[in-house]
């Protein structure tokens, strides 16, 4: 008898405390199963963030440090420089990474820090109750854009993958989604590729994951997956933006 699908070893045996249908749990499962498949559980250090993604450390069964809002890439820089042989990743939401932590993420990429960032983009601040993020879509209603995001007042949504892929030190950048089993399998491959980029010592890697926040979007979990397809992917095109192996060819 063999387990085809189950809870990965690199997850703690505690239930996720995310809202019903929140794709954070799904994403953490992917990250943990990639760590298991690479047999890196004993040699991984994860760096948490502030926000719903900040629950990650409670669920991951790997060495972890809890990080201040937006500062995970700076923490991870310190961790990775002291642990050059280990697998180091940050797990950050869009408020954390694309707003308060823009300096840290850009300069981590700029220095070519050899860690991976899992960037969960659900176009809102989840934990604080659904405020507007830099990634909030035009017209999207949030508690701080109650009439819908206005590009004239708040700018256009910030495209992190496109932004970071202009930086030389960033070596693997891909945007994926978790709206269907097919997408989820692609997301898992992307995470693996990013971890391999890191372990090959190539440089900085980031996987942006288009995710849901059913609670703050005011949608059912299945409607939320539909919104990824109909609204988010058109605004945030999926694909590989930077691939160090392609560069070498």
């Amino acid at each position, binding site marked *: *008898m*063999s*387990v*085809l*699908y*189950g*809870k*990965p070893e690199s*997850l703690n045996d505690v*239930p*996720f405390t*995310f*809202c*019903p*249908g*929140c*794709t*954070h*749990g*799904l994403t953490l*499962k992917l990250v943990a199963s990639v760590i298991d498949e690479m047999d890196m559980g004993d040699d991984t250090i994860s760096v948490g963030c502030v926000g719903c993604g900040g629950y990650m450390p409670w669920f991951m069964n790997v060495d972890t440090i809890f990080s201040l809002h937006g500062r995970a890439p700076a923490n991870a820089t310190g961790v990775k420089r002291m642990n050059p042989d280990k697998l180091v990743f940050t797990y950050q939401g869009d408020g954390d990474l694309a707003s308060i932590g823009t300096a840290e993420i850009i300069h981590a990429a700029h220095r070519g820090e050899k860690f991976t960032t899992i960037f969960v983009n659900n176009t809102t601040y989840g934990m604080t109750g659904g405020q507007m993020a830099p990634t909030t879509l035009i017209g999207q209603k949030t508690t701080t854009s109650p009439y819908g995001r206005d590009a004239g007042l708040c700018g256009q949504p910030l495209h992190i993958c496109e932004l970071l892929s202009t930086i030389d030190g960033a070596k693997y950048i891909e945007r994926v989604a978790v709206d*269907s*089993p097919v997408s*989820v*399998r692609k997301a898992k491959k992307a995470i693996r590729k990013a971890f391999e980029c890191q372990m090959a010592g190539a440089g900085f890697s980031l996987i942006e994951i288009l995710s849901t926040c*059913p609670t703050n979007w005011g949608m*059912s*979990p*299945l409607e939320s*997956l539909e919104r990824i397809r109909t609204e988010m992917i058109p605004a945030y095109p999926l694909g590989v933006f930077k691939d160090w192996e392609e560069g070498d060819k």
Partner: protein
Amino acid sequence: MKFNIIFNHEECKGCELCIPWCKFELISFDKSRLNKKGVHPAMIAHPEKCVGCGNCALMCPDAIITIEKTEEDRSQGKEG
């Protein structure tokens, strides 16, 4: 059965993310019971029809679905 499908019913949040991907529409909510969270947990109606594609387990955001491959000559697996 070729596969054991085990649902950790008590941790199911009833989010439905496991349901629509099953080609054989085997998964549904068990309306006959409520778990400690107060939801009708997801269940598999005819586990013998499962082909082990794993879509339900893959999409479950709470990792409550485990799929085990059994040895084919064993007639009965663990019902989940």
